[in-house]
């Protein structure tokens, strides 16, 4: 009896603390984002509300959103740039997934000479900092006339793909090779077996790679800016947003409400992606836990 009671008290304590921690962290997670929302609906282009009462504004202004969505600059506009960003990020996601899974599959199933050395080599090379690759990449791509979306996609994919390839490999390791053998006996080629079986069973890794690839390309400013600056109709949403919010030219007055509004517009599809795929993402790493192996 006492044992059961002790158990019950313990359980209530444990759950109680858990809920408290979760609620505190949830508030901490939301608070800055609440700020972003409030700034986007405000009239004053400030980042710091100088009074606590500003946390609960009396009036919601849509000026920022209106200006963002209707202004036209030399043939470019925020909706156009947003469309560009979605296309760019989507393509990057697709290509990253393909690259990561093909490589992961190869690393897992196929017998490749010097596999371990190659894998280590590829992995180590990505340790080189991103900021240091920007200028050499620009020079290289300028030479090959790749200062456009194709060049950008090529520049974005390896970052995610290499990392995702390793996770894919571990995931595919846990899918018995017999599945494909059976499929191939049934008449499918290796590639079809790959598509039908692997892609479906390694879905969590696919989801993770797609999201990481998407968000990396979607949110990047530096590389996109240096590649796409001369072509305003091809700008991405990030470049356009920075420009319209006056954050590029130091002599312009920064309009943080515009910036916040743009971030909200850009953030909504991204957050939706994350939340929708949460089930899959939380299974993507399950093969890293070395339980049996």
């Amino acid at each position: 009896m006492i044992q059961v009671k002790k158990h019950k008290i313990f359980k209530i304590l444990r759950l109680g603390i858990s809920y408290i921690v979760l609620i505190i962290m949830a508030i901490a997670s939301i608070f800055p984002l609440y700020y972003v929302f409030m700034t986007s609906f405000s009239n004053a282009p400030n980042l710091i509300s100088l009074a606590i009462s500003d946390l609960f504004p009396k009036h919601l202004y849509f000026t920022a959103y209106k200006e963002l969505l209707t202004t036209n600059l030399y043939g470019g506009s925020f909706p156009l740039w947003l469309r560009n960003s979605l296309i760019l990020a989507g393509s990057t996601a697709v290509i990253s997934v393909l690259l990561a899974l093909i490589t992961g599959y190869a690393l897992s199933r196929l017998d490749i000479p010097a596999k371990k050395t190659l894998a280590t080599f590829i992995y180590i090379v990505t340790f080189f900092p991103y900021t240091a690759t920007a200028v050499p990449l620009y020079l290289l791509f300028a030479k090959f006339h790749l200062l456009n979306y194709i060049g950008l996609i090529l520049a974005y994919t390896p970052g995610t793909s290499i990392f995702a390839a390793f996770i894919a490999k571990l995931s595919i390791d846990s899918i018995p090779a017999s599945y494909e053998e059976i499929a191939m006996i049934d008449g499918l080629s290796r590639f079809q077996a790959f598509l039908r079986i692997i892609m479906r069973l390694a879905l969590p890794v696919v989801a993770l790679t797609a999201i990481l690839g998407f968000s990396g390309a979607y949110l990047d400013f530096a590389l996109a800016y240096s590649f796409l600056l001369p072509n305003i109709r091809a700008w991405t949403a990030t470049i356009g947003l920075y420009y319209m919010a006056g954050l590029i030219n130091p002599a312009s007055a920064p309009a943080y409400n515009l910036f916040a509004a743009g971030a909200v517009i850009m953030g909504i599809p991204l957050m939706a992606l994350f939340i929708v795929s949460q089930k899959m993402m939380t299974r993507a790493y399950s093969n890293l836990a070395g339980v049996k192996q």
Partner: protein
Amino acid sequence: MNVLSKNRKLKGVSGTIIAIIVVIIIIVAAVGVYLVMTSHHPTPTVSTTNSLISTTSSTSTTTTTSILNTSNPQSLMQLVGLTSAPSTPVTITVWDTYSSSENQSFIQTLAQFEQEFPWIHVKVTPGAQVGTSQFETAAKAGQAPIVYRDSSDSGGALFAAGLVLNLSQYLPPSITSLYVPTAINDWTLNGSIYGLPDDVNYIVMFYNKHFVPYAPNTTDQLIQIAEQVNKTYHVWGIAYGASDEYGYRFAAWFAGYGGQIFTTQNGQIVPDLNSSAMVNALNFWYNLTYNLHINYLAPSSGVEGQLFIANQTAIIFDGPWDLNEYLQALGPNLGAAPLPVVSQTGLRAEPFIGSTGWLIATPQASGASPMQIKAALIFILYVTNYQSDLRLWDVAHDIPANMQAYNAALTELKEGKLQPAYLNQIMEGILEQAQYGQKFPNIPQMAYYWDSFHEYASEFFAQKISANQAAQGMEQAFVQSLIQNGLMSTILPPPPIFLIPYIMLLVPVLVAPIVKIKGKW
């Protein structure tokens, strides 16, 4: 036994394959590097014909009119050596670095330009930045724009590096008469002009007339007024983020205490930051911040502006580029005046009188043809002429650099023609500062001032070092970076003894992988 031999065979095979792979990697990478290296020298198609053009244009101007006219399309074309418009249209690429309010003026100017010069197509790229390396990176790849707008100091560095044209080789010397002397001076390096200015910029003192009864003339008055404001209204007297500073605004106070950034020693230009002037200027602001508590050490100039707009501070130091914001927020309460005289020395606090202007990239950087260069010259002469510059003044309140426009602006002010009425007085206060300023150094050494100043000023205002240490530190850092970048000659090479601590640091790092750590986690 078969398995064993097979394994050994496979090991031998995989060994050679590794070697082959490594060699292929190195070859491909080396080839790639070589290809990119050799693409750095796009053959410039002109070099000898330039001098011919300049001589003919100088003779042509002396024969036609003695007064240069950059508002007339015909005379503009003559200036660059063209008698009539060419049959095929020419395209020039322009990087627009105007702010949003200036852009409104620029769009109109551009429309006018395209009307008067239908054979020149202007491809404008908005969103470019002043003084950043995007231009340099593009230049390295031969992708720089033909026309670029930059500040006079970073333009000077580009000129010294050979990335922008020496306009003195293309335009007659009388071109300087078209511009305000301080402005065109900013764009002159070693007697050569490398850009044409379209505005003059510097900081002034903005104050809120609701709190401040009269503009302080001296620093003693400044302190007095600030203390009054603090006591009576409980808002900050001054908001000046001296620790966020990179030395652009602080240079005014440094000059006010008698300091100078550069001096010449044995014919070499050397920094002169380590002086009592720097110590006194630093201590002055330390005093106002930490002893008198009348200055708010803002983390950025953006925060200063926000406080000013929200009536939370009475005085800030900013430039006319933010004027529109302050006008909107404060209306008739906005006041502008020159920086005060430093009571201790009797010298005025002299801000940098800088200028932003237009440059033309060298053909090596942009791949431009001679005809494109001519079109570019016409373009920059046009956007810095009387009408264009006056438009900038009318729309964006930029202080004109074109002499005619500047005089017209002064006349407008004297006749009180600006709307709303209180703007006249404000602009008068702003223009008054122009008389008390120092030239914005445009020598290549200037680029190394900013970070050296910032590093030690921020430490000083964080109360970690004394003013003396700060002045010494920033001078040392400045000198070191000049030496590192080859702008100052060193004395002797260092002895290798300094390497010993690093060697000792490396030993455990190198030894660690060799020592195998056995056992579990």
